[in-house]
């Protein structure tokens, strides 16, 4: 069963077309990894999925609901689609706990006690339960991102959208977030994830898509794409990504393409 179907999606800002006909699907429990150079439209694609950016044309279906249908209450779709941002985007004036209970109470209409219970268990699943009473800016980037992941998870999403969840982090903080993401992936969450973590893509991804200039360049199983890319452009891109990680001193093992 498909959790997400995107067909021939076009979108952009003003008269600048960013997505030039993108089609992809995420099956239930599947992890789809999206890669591509900056400006290729990955973030816009993710935002379009829940209409944080309005699509120009094409169809998007999440869990059987046609997102692109203007009559659909988009907030209901967003409530069951988790979104994790590159820069975490926690609400700085609220405690970690309140960051998570707020949407549960306002959107899911949960009573306070139930929301707290739910939030604490979500925090526990990312190893952050001890920090429930802290404020986001008192935490490290990695910890903030784990809280943001917990906030998304607490909503019991059918699909998790992750927009470069580790890109803003120092190499040593990446690992703690990746471990959490791997754990969530293993538990069967459907994920569409924009990342340049090649190892993560290989270990966790079921399908990999390389985008450039608003189009899909190549797609396939991550292992094949990473070790045996068909297109010259894919080869080139992976090489530059791996080089960047080697320079950045990533803690993870490096797989040469």
């Amino acid at each position: 069963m498909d959790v997400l179907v995107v067909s021939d999606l076009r979108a952009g800002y003003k008269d600048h077309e960013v997505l030039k006909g993108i089609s992809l699907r995420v099956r239930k429990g599947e992890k789809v990894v999206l890669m591509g150079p900056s400006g290729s439209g990955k973030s816009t694609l993710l935002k379009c999925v829940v209409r944080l950016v309005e699509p120009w044309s094409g169809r998007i279906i999440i869990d059987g609901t046609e997102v692109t249908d203007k009559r659909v209450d988009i907030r209901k779709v967003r409530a069951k689609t988790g979104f994790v941002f590159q820069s975490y985007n926690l609400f700085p004036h609220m405690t970690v706990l309140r960051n998570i209970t707020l949407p549960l109470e306002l959107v899911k209409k949960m009573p306070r006690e139930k929301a707290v219970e739910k939030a604490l268990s979500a925090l526990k699943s990312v190893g952050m339960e001890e920090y429930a009473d802290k404020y986001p800016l008192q935490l490290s980037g990695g910890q903030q991102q784990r809280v943001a992941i917990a906030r998304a998870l607490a909503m019991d999403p059918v699909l998790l959208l992750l927009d470069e969840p580790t890109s803003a982090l120092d190499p040593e903080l990446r690992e703690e977030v990746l471990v959490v993401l791997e754990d969530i992936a293993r538990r069967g969450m459907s994920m569409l994830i924009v990342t340049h973590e090649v190892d993560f893509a290989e270990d966790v991804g079921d399908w990999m898509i390389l985008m450039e200039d608003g189009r899909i360049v190549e797609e396939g199983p991550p292992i094949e794409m990473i070790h045996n890319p068909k297109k010259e452009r894919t080869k080139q891109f992976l090489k530059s990504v791996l080089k960047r990680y080697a320079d950045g001193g990533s803690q993870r093992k490096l797989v040469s393409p």
Partner: protein
Amino acid sequence: MYDTLFFILGILPYLLEGVYLTLYVSTLSFLIGFVLSAILTPTRLFTQPPLSWLARTYIEGFRGTPLLVQLFVIYFGLPALGLKFDAVTAGVIALGLNSAAYQAEILRSSIKGIPESQFLAAESLGLTTAQIYRYVVLPQAVRTAIPALVNEFVTLVKESSLISVIGVVELTRRGEYLVSYTFRALEVYLAVALIYFVMCAAFSQIAKLVERKFKIPGYERGA
């Protein structure tokens, strides 16, 4: 020297009685301004052209003309339309209407200062626009606005001296009376200035405490 000191000490009680009216007028007009700005700002930000244009015109109008002229229009001009106010009321109205324009600008820029990413995060969770403003944007914007709002209040305390010209016997007016009795303009006006200064400094200090109390934990300036 001693003579000057004793003279100033002698006139202080009389001047300090004017502090009450100065603070009364400033506080009341600040509150009026606050309430009006809470109407003006959303009107300017969220309504369609005829209404939003009206809010904008109000703000630009009051910011672009001298307060003293606004005061004259209200106190001397409006009676021609049958709207007659006593001096204190006219003063409070003029200061309040004027302050509303400035406070609306403060509120607007604080809201505009909330990063787009906060809106995106709240939207992605399924919050309605009203909920986003109520729970995410305004609590942060008001915190940012505190220093500027206090500054606006301090400005009001000082500008309230203008209403002495329509005969409100506040701090400055009392100074004028004393000068016409004693002819010692330098000492009297310096004493008046000193009282304003102490008031303003005190409010700035209180503001620092308030700001610290509402500071977002972990937030460092420039971070």
